[in-house]
Structures are given as C-alpha cells and as structure tokens.
C-alpha cells in the first residue's frame, strides 16, 4: 500500500539519488544515445520536488499528476513522455486504489503503449516488467532490481535511437533501465512494498 507521505518520500529520495548519479547516467547514455539522460532526469526530478511545495494537502492522485506534469514538461527526449505517462496512469488509477501492484501494473501498460514497446527490447520496460511481477508476489528486493538492470547489457536494442546502432548496442546497460533501477531502489528505501 502507498499513501501521500510515502509517495512523496519515495520521489524525494529518487530525486536525491538522480542528482548524485546524473553524470553516471549520462555516461551510460554516451555509447548508445546522446549522453544527456542523467541531466534530463535531474532537471525533471528537481521540478517534481518543487511541485510538492506548491500543493496544500494533496491526495495520492494529485502527487502522481504533479510528478507526471513536471517530468513531461522538463525532461524531453523519450524519457520525459515515458516516465510522464507512467505517473499519469498511476494518477488516474490512484482514484480507485492505493494497491502498489495495481498502480505499477497500469503504469507499465502505459509505458508499453506510449513507447509501442515490449520486454526484451533493451528499454526501461526490462526493469519495470520484472519489478511489477515481484511487487505482486511480495518478493521485490534490491537483487531483483540489479539483475533486471544488468539484463539489458547483453540485449540488442530494437527500438529507440540505440536501435540504429544494431549490434553495436550490445554490451551497454540501457540508461532508462538504469534510472528505473534507481527509482525502484528508492521505493524500497522509502518503505513502500
């Protein structure tokens, strides 16, 4: 289960970790993208945290909506709409339920639809998919997350800008998968399961 306080704590921890890891994430992006994933995510998450200060007594749906809008308007590229869609879908779903598994499931479906993508294509979905399954089985831990991030290294990118590299995309961790790994580790740290 998730509530407003825990959700905000989760996203604040995520923002902090993204700030610390921005250079590392951008470096991951260098061989297969255009070396700006860390900076883009950092700009977005700083805006997310600022948005929390502007709301008085928000509900869970509002927290997720503000998160989505900040990410959509600040991140750009492909990551902005993908993360933005995830939180927008959670915002809609949060009006009916606060069950974490259901919220994340609807977010994952939104990402798949927005990106016209599925697991195995070397994207953030390769982290979201196993994490959502683990949350539903009550078995999410850091090891599951690390393994999911690592699994993208040997994959061939078949979608997004990395796909233009063909075989040359193999051997690099997907930057979106890496930032999603940070997102879910922050969730565990905030005590959300």
């Amino acid at each position, binding site marked *: 289960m998730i509530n407003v306080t825990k959700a905000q704590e989760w996203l604040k921890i995520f923002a902090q970790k993204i700030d610390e890891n921005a250079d590392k994430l951008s470096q991951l992006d260098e061989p297969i993208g255009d070396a700006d994933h860390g900076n883009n995510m950092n700009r977005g998450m700083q805006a997310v945290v600022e948005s929390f200060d502007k709301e008085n007594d928000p509900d869970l749906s509002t927290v997720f909506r503000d998160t989505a809008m900040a990410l959509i*308007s600040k991140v750009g590229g*492909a990551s902005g709409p993908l993360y933005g869609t995830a939180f927008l879908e959670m915002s809609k779903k949060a009006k009916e339920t606060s069950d974490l598994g259901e919220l994340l499931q609807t977010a994952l479906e939104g990402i798949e639809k*927005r990106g016209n993508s599925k697991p195995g294509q070397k994207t953030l979905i390769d982290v979201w998919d196993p994490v959502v399954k683990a949350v539903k089985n009550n078995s999410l831990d850091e090891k599951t997350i690390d393994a999911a991030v690592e699994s993208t290294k040997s994959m061939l990118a078949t979608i997004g*800008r990395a796909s233009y590299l063909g075989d040359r995309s193999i051997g690099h961790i997907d930057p979106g998968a890496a930032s999603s790994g940070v997102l879910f580790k922050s969730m565990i740290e905030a005590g959300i399961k």
Partner: protein
Amino acid sequence: MKKIINNPHDVVPEMIDGMVRSYPQIVNLINNTYAVVRSDQESMKGKVGVISGGGSGHEPTHAGFVGKGMLSAAVAGQVFTSPTPDQIYEAIKAVDQGNGVFMIVKNYSGDVMNFDMAKDLADADGIKVKSIVVDDDIAVENSLYTQGRRGVAGTLFMHKCIGAAADQGASLDELESLAKEILPHINTIAVALSAATVPEVGKPGFTLAEDEIEFGVGIHSEPGYKKEKMMSSKELVSELIGKLDNSLHLESNKQYAMLVNGMGATPLMEQFIFTKDTLDKLGEKNITPAFMKVGNLMTSIDMAGISLTLFELADKKWLDYLNYPVKTIAWS
C-alpha cells in the same frame, strides 16, 4: 569548441529571440515557450492549423518555414532533443481555429512520443488533432533492427505540400489523406564528411579520419550504412542516386522534385557542384526534375555533408503545392 554563443544552456532561447526580433513581420513568439507562430493570424481564419517542430540545431528548420502558405507554428526543443508536450500543446492552441490542427512529425522516438502526448492533451480539451510521421531516410530501411526509417530533409516537401493545401482550405481529414498519399514518394539519403558539435557537449558527436566519409548518416550524426575513403562529387552522386534508384525506381516518364540540402558546414559552392553532378546523372536517365531546391535547409549544426531528396510527383497537384507562393523566413 569555438562557437559564437554565450552560455551553452541558453542557445535555444537566445536563438529564438534573435529570430523573432529579426523577422517580426513573419513570426511571433508564443508566450512562455520556444515556439513561434505566424504573425499574419487573420489569414489563418477558418483554416486547419499546421504545426511541426523537433530538436534545435536543424535551422532554418523548423521556424524558418512558418508563414502564410506553409507552417502555422513551429516548436523548438533543446539541441537535438524533442520539444516537450506542454510546448507543443501551446502551439496547437495558438493555431486552432476550430477546424483542427495537423502535425508533421519526424520519425524519431522522442518526437513521436512527445507529439503524441500533446495530441492526448488536446483531445482532452476537445481540439481535433491529426498527424503524419515522416520517414523519408532510406539509409536504414533494410535493417532488421530499427523502428523504421528516420525523418530527415524530405520532411520539408511535406511541410510545403500540406501548408499549401491547408492555405487553400483543405479539411483536417483531407490533409491526413494527402499526407499519407505523399509520404512513400519522398526519399532521402545523406553523406557526412564530419560530425556536429552540440554546444552543451562541447565535442563532435563522432570522429572520421581526415580522408574518411560516412554514408547514410541521420541528422543528429547517427551512424550510417558504411564508411568510405573521401571521393569526388561525381562518385558521391553515383552512390546516392544508386540508393535512391533502388528505392524509388527512377523512370524518365515520371516527374520528380529534388532537394539538395547542406548539413551546415558544407559551402554552397560544393552544394552547387554536387547539384550539377546530380542533374547530369539524372540526365543520363532522361530525367529533368520539375522542381528544384538547393541550400542549407535541414542542417545538423556544423556537420559537413549533404543530403539528396527525390520526391516522385505521382499527382500533378503536388507540383502546384510546391510552387504555391509562401511568405516565410527560409523558403522562397
């Protein structure tokens, strides 16, 4: 990196500011955005709005093609990064006259997703929006591992035809059918002599040896299909026309429009030599293009190189659209 800029973070807003202040009779800034809209809003009355946009660094694309007869508005993202949906949505609102808005999007995943989200926002507010995703770059068409062809310089022919049809009063549905009909007939292929330097990165996106070139690059210095030793203009033309012939099946009884596009650092002198060689090569097949354009139109900052677009004019009306008068900064 040597560039005439101030802070690398400020290049996009400062560029747009300079542009709208240079040509206030043609474009205005949409408040709180990096988007520009036609100054002559009266003549848009009752017509479908046409918008386009994408990352910055491709100047004069896209703002240079905003004006009567072409785009109604254009949205600029950060350098080589798609604009965000809120900015695109502001442009949609600025040009909607109640008859809907048509978006021309280049096939890059970030662009496609951000324009899609903007469409969702507009749908929620009752504004009808339709779009075409342009994928004219034939360099990557045979790869198993891509999400299709990229959208590059041939997009300008789409801007021109759709803009002309919209100005003549075509409906949103008519523009959509026209765009779908035109799309497969526009093909582009490029060659790079050197890569672009993104101001915030500070170094070139890739390195080619002094005597090396890369065929089939995209407009952000993405890899192409092969590296070769530098060759003469005639040999470059042979390679590029060969690729276009494979894809479009060039025939003397068909009509074509041709676009020779400089990538930013290739002088017009070289572009005209390349154009002469292209016309000679097409002449061998008894083809004389019915419409021609040469210049730096879809650039890649300071990349040296050239792209060649051929557009098979399968319908006579398309040539009329290309010749339709416009008032923009960069298309005349």
